[in-house]
């Protein structure tokens, strides 16, 4: 059991309206094996019940608890407190999104970017009845590193380009677009390309790699983006 100080961002729209948020400190004992989410749960359940944050599966698959911990985006449930290496832990909401309350941000703009690229399989040819479409293991392998996204928002929220340009599709939506672009079953490139090939689309990325550093699932959104660019280059040449 080690003592840690948690500096948590707080904002209650009913009380703190007009302010730009505040920081509240909690001094708590942290047991071995605790993640930041465990610590937040401890605070909520034993110290201050008014602390608000999203959480669900607490093992890194639902993507609810994306937040900025010690200045870096990750999902709280996968971040061991001991691995942070500091006795003072700063916990903030994901930046780039509007704060609804405490650590909860408005993710709608994030989802809107996804909807913009038509995030679903588009296939015009009818699939075989009562049978699966065939896809070779090699073709399936192209999807690896693109389909595992949990929509936690860590990547887009860590992107300096997104901070500056809120219309930028962001690494997440572009990775989703790449996931369908390389799927051998998908025929929707023509429909999707307009959204991607936009001044707020794939060309806006400045290969800063913050998204790669932030992704808790260790996916490489920048790879997806450069692959999209190469596809478009090929298409035009």
């Amino acid at each position, binding site marked *: 059991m080690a003592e840690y100080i948690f500096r948590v961002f707080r904002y209650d729209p009913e009380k703190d309206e007009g302010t730009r948020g505040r*920081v509240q400190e909690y001094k708590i004992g942290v047991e071995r094996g605790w993640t930041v989410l465990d610590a937040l749960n401890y605070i909520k359940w034993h110290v201050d019940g008014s602390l608000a944050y999203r959480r669900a599966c607490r093992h890194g698959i639902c993507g609810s608890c994306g937040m*900025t911990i010690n*200045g870096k985006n990750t999902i709280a449930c996968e971040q061991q407190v001991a691995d942070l290496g500091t006795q003072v832990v700063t916990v903030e909401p994901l930046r780039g999104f*509007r704060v609804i309350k405490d650590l909860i941000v*408005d993710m709608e703009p994030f989802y809107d970017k996804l909807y913009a690229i038509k995030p679903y399989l588009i296939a015009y040819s009818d699939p075989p009845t009562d049978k699966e479409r065939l896809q070779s293991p090699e073709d399936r392998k192209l999807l690896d590193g693109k389909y595992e996204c949990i929509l936690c928002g860590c990547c887009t929220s860590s992107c*300096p380009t997104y901070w500056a340009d809120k219309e930028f599709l962001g690494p997440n939506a572009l990775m989703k677009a790449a996931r369908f672009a390389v799927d051998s079953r998908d025929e929707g490139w023509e429909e999707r390309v307009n959204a991607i090939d936009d001044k707020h689309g794939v060309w806006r990325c400045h290969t*800063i*790699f913050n998204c790669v550093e932030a992704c808790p699932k260790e996916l490489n959104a920048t790879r997806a983006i450069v692959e999209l660019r190469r596809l478009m280059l090929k298409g035009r040449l």
Partner: protein
Amino acid sequence: MLEKPSVIKRYRLHVGTIAWILHRATGLLLVLYLMLHIWVIHHVSQGPAGFNKVMKAVQSPLFLFLEIGLLGCVLYHAFNGLRIIIVEFSREGVEAHKQIFAAMMAVAVFLFLVGGVPMFIHFLHVLAG
């Protein structure tokens, strides 16, 4: 809803972020230099007298010193630019961007020393008269 929380700590800087910030900063400086450069060289049309007069001004110790910085900017911008191109057009560059950055910077620093040291010596000479 809160648009811009102000009590937020700075986002942690990673290699890629630093590289990008420097790339932008050096890029903007180089644009300014480019304009200056075009204007200065334009004096060549005015014949030897005019040109040498301007050149004398821009080869004062101060400018000679700044030129070393210019070399640094050019080398950084060029080699980081090459890194971005390698990242975008090679197969594994995206994965290895940090290593590529390190390699590029090693070359840039080497060239900076090769070019910068004589420039610095020249600067000292001029300074000493």
